[in-house]
């Protein structure tokens, strides 16, 4: 019976995949046909000679620093607010606050960063501030939920022992729960930072500054050479953050 249901589900998934292709009217054969491929090839070729002039590189440097600052500060803010919201969301302050904080966290993370960025551009104007705030809002929702789950899974014995010897709840948390929790929190923060550096590049599309804005502008003006330099800079940033994050993980998260 079980296997029958599983088989049925697999067939449904297969049918869904086929239906998707049909619905979108994508003909894979036509897509990879010679005409289309040549067109895409010509387009790609225009990217293969990036513009490396000093002026452009300086602009890219500034954009890169803006993007890096956006992602780092946005993630940091989100970590702080996420932890603050995770405490009630894990049920530490009763049922009512738990439901309320879970609702807030779900709301924050349900709205994608790009929509947040559009909203923040309205509120704070164009520029990297909107991007930082947008990232902070969305990531608070994500991190808050992850932190709350981690909090629920930590063993309660160390904190209970400190309560039992007369310490108050604050120190029981700091001395008993936090040391166990901290590596997990750090892992989640680093993981979100890796994600946010990619998103920060992109938020510029709606005017939130950084490399994304430069890319959008140069692509709209069909300046492929400049655009390819920006893409290279984005790649460098992503690699740098990935590398930093994995080094930090080795150093502080593993035993």
């Amino acid at each position: 019976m079980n296997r029958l249901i599983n088989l049925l589900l697999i067939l449904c998934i297969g049918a869904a995949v086929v239906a998707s292709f049909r619905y979108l009217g994508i003909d894979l054969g036509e897509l990879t046909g010679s005409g289309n491929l040549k067109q895409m090839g010509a387009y790609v070729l225009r990217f293969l000679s990036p513009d490396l002039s000093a002026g452009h590189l300086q602009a890219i440097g500034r954009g890169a620093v803006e993007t890096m600052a956006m992602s780092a500060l946005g993630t940091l803010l989100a970590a702080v607010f996420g932890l603050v919201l995770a405490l009630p969301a894990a049920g530490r302050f009763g049922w009512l606050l738990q439901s309320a904080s879970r609702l807030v966290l779900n709301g924050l993370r349900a709205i994608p960063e790009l929509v947040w960025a559009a909203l923040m551009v309205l509120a704070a104007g164009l520029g990297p501030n909107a991007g930082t705030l947008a990232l902070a809002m969305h990531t608070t929702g994500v991190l808050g939920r992850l932190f709350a789950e981690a909090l629920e899974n930590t063993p309660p014995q160390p904190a209970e022992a400190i309560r039992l010897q007369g310490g108050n709840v604050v120190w029981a948390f700091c001395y008993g729960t936090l040391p166990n929790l901290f590596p997990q929190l750090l892992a989640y923060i680093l993981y979100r930072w890796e994600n946010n550096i990619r998103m920060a590049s992109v938020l510029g599309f709606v005017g939130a500054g950084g490399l994304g804005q430069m890319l959008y502008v140069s692509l709209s003006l069909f300046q492929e050479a400049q655009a390819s330099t920006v893409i290279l800079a984005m790649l460098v940033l992503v690699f740098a953050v990935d590398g930093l994050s994995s080094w930090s993980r080795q150093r502080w998260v593993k035993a």
Partner: protein
Amino acid sequence: MLTRDTRDPATLPRLLLSLLALALLWPGIHFSELDLGVLLQADSQSEMGRFVSAFWPPAHDEEFLQLLWQATLQTLAIATAGMALALMLAVPASLLASRALSLSAASRSGRPSALGRLLRWPVRGLLIFLRSVPEIVWALLFVRAVGLGPTAGVLAIAITYSGMLGKVYAEIFESVDQRPAHSLLQAGSGRLAAFCYGILPNVAAELLSYTVYRWECAIRASVVMGFVGAGGLGQQIDLSLRMFAGGEVASMLLTFFVLVLFADQISRLLRWRFA
């Protein structure tokens, strides 16, 4: 008592680290022009307030709802088709890139020979490159290459997610106990057979779980890519935002939430049944 008694070896590193963090914080705030106060200013609050007040009532006329339904289906289709293409690329790539299939590793207790590592490196590099460029950038490029519409979205998801899936699959293969596969390889079986009998049974649940999770992410990514013209719900939201049609944006955001919830439920169902 010796003064050695009161010196804590962790003081110096901690102090240095805190100073470093502070030193980086200041330029960080300067370059990102961080200003939390802007959210509390009267005029920006009224600006946001006016925008948000236009959300009510959400648009619900017949014609619009038809459009909404079509756009939702399109988003689902983009995500599913994109994932299917991504899997077609990711599975062979992960098998090529993973050290779990390395013959040399089987006889050297898990560490492939230098040649083995060298040959795997280009595939890994390709996977990392594919996943490092944000999918929106791919979408933007494809929109310029194949025109507006869902094809660009499907291709963008296929390329980015093949990188993500491929790399994570390769890591998952390497993270389980390699000894069953190694013993099969040492007994003379082919690489693929050793993989299917030795590693696949252990990793199937985790692979499935991660794939389904990525499908959920693909749905969200499809909506976001619509902002640059790749079809689906996102493109409609972008159009309505430009026309300041708050009611339409509201209904579309609501639909987006429902879609995400629906995808979450399906992913839970699949993970529960198969893992």
